[in-house]
């Protein structure tokens, strides 16, 4: 038992027990580091699909012993070619549960806790318990959500430097056919997901009139059945892409449409692909990207090497290209940026606060609308909302924000920075003078 444990960590020991020249800034090699990695590092893997299976296996074999995995999907037959932790008899079972079980069976001493639910179902505290969050996701929305959660833990010092202990590192992997990426997100230090959201190409959408009048491709016929014909026939009933009967109906309608216009190529799998926006997944791409992500996770936790800085792209379409690009933060990012620190007396009304923004040298923001944790405190337009929020203007901002000592608010308005008028949205860190941290009026803070 002890021998097999030693042999398993032999390669890892070479990284963790010996000093080196290329190590990270806080690296302290030794057996203690190896043990700490096992005892203290808690890693969450988001997604138990193609990347998730690889990630769980890679992390478990890299010395991480406390893993959690979250995924809302059940296993389908079409997953089996690459999601290697699953077997035919697992079809229909939750991915997270089966993946956790299989890895625990194979890797001694690793403990994986599965969570079969949506990422939105978990409280913020759940995410805060992990030291590193590793993402094996296939959608921008889900990445954006986890990014917002991780960045919400970030706090800044008075001098706008991030407080190190509030940084929640993320390692994000993604694959699409022969292409993939791996990136390291250290909120407050490297760009967050929203800082570089422009990296994603726009989705292809066909004009509705083309679908209705002049279809030219199989995809046009499928989208016609999905977007136009469905509503015509099933008045009011929402289309569910995960319901096989719905998909079968769209497929049959698409075939009829294609025959009418003499268009070849409508198949059931293409229908699924077009409707659910699926791109064929390749097992080896997942393995390569996962390996890069697992290594970065190990590097962040142990400091045994400098981390990737900060975005790796892999392209195996023609030949093989790998490149690391150092993207820069958007210092005014609404999600990960520090925002402008504003100190206020608890008596300051919302109206006075809005006036102050106009004078503030770092803002020069006139006609500001103010929003706090999903509550619109004041809206300059449209008239219907202005009227609904006007009564807030005479109330103290401290009361409107639930009597917390400090919190983030967002303001939109007309900025006059650099002698140019431009509409802008800014993040503000509001701190109230003379209110001790952590003393909150729970009734107010807990409100909707």
């Amino acid at each position: 038992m002890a021998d097999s444990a030693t042999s398993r960590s032999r390669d890892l020991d070479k990284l963790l027990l010996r000093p080196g020249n290329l190590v990270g800034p806080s690296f302290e090699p030794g057996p203690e580091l190896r043990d700490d990695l096992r005892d203290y590092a808690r890693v969450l893997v988001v997604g138990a699909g193609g990347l998730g299976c690889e990630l769980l296996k890679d992390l478990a074999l890299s010395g991480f012993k406390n893993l959690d995995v979250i995924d809302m999907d059940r296993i389908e037959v079409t997953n089996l070619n690459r999601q290697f932790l699953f077997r035919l008899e697992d079809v229909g079972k939750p991915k997270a549960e089966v993946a956790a079980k299989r890895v625990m069976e194979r890797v001694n001493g690793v403990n994986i806790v599965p969570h079969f639910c949506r990422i939105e179902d978990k409280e913020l505290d759940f995410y805060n318990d992990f030291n590193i969050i590793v993402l094996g996701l296939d959608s921008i929305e889900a990445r954006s959500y986890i990014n917002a959660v991780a960045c919400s833990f970030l706090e800044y010092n008075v001098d706008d430097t991030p407080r190190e202990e509030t940084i929640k590192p993320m390692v994000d992997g993604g694959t699409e056919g022969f292409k993939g990426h791996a990136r390291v997100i250290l909120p407050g230090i490297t760009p967050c997901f929203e800082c570089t959201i422009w990296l994603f190409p726009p989705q292809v959408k066909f004009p509705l009139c083309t679908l209705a009048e002049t279809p030219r491709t199989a995809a046009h016929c499928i989208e016609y059945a999905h977007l136009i014909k469905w509503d015509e026939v099933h008045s009011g009933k929402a289309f569910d892409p995960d319901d096989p009967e719905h998909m079968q109906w769209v497929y049959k309608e698409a075939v009829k449409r294609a025959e009418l216009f003499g268009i070849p190529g409508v198949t059931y799998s293409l229908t699924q692909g077009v409707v659910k926006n699926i791109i064929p997944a390749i097992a080896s791409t997942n393995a390569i990207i996962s390996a890069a992500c697992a290594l970065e996770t190990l590097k962040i936790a142990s400091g045994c090497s400098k981390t990737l800085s900060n975005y790796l792209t892999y392209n195996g379409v023609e030949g093989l290209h790998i490149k690391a690009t150092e993207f820069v933060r958007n210092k005014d990012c609404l999600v990960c940026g520090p925002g402008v620190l504003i100190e206020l007396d608890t008596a300051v009304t919302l109206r006075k606060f809005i006036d102050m923004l106009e004078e503030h040298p770092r803002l020069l923001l006139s006609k500001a609308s103010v929003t706090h944790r999903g509550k619109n405190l004041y809206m300059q337009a449209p008239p219907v909302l202005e009227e609904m929020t006007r009564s807030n203007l005479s109330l103290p901002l401290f009361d409107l924000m639930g009597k917390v000592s400090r919190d983030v608010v967002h303001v939109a308005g007309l900025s006059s920075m650099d002698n140019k008028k431009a509409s802008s949205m800014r993040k503000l860190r509001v701190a109230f003078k003379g209110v001790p941290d952590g003393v909150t009026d729970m009734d107010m803070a807990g409100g909707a």
Partner: protein
Amino acid sequence: MIKLFKVKEKQRENAENAKKQTAAELRLHKDISELNLPKSCSITFPNGKDDLMNFEVLIRPDEGYYVGGKFLFSFQVSPHYPHEAPKVKCKTKIYHPNIDLEGNVCLNILREDWKPVLNINTIIYGLYHLFTEPNYEDPLNHDAAAVLRDNPVLFGTNVKRAMSGGFVGHTSFSRCT
């Protein structure tokens, strides 16, 4: 960072457990707070002032074929806004070449030409434009488009008939004036 992980284990922070606003909500807040609509368009928020992701726009064209009519559009903004256009449907049954009887709208900036620099204001102006300049070259309602192309006078008569709650061909409409 393992040192930090150990520290955290001892003094776990009591982070406030309130959801932060998403990037989509913030961007939408900005869009809505800067709305500058013509007199013929008005906006309402059925779920109150804190749900900006779902709203309705009423358009009362003051010129063209549809003058005197009232047309209600529903907007559904996705969590992926502004990288994805809002879903817009016409709730009022309408005889129009670019809007079908199910309320689907053929407007380029709602689909193939959507860009994140566009905003809610642009979409509403785009919708308004459909009433002043219905376009038979991008038809969703094939019959209405053909009539507009071949016989604009008859098209005008049909629009009036539909808006006053009559039949056009075999299709019945509800009064919307």
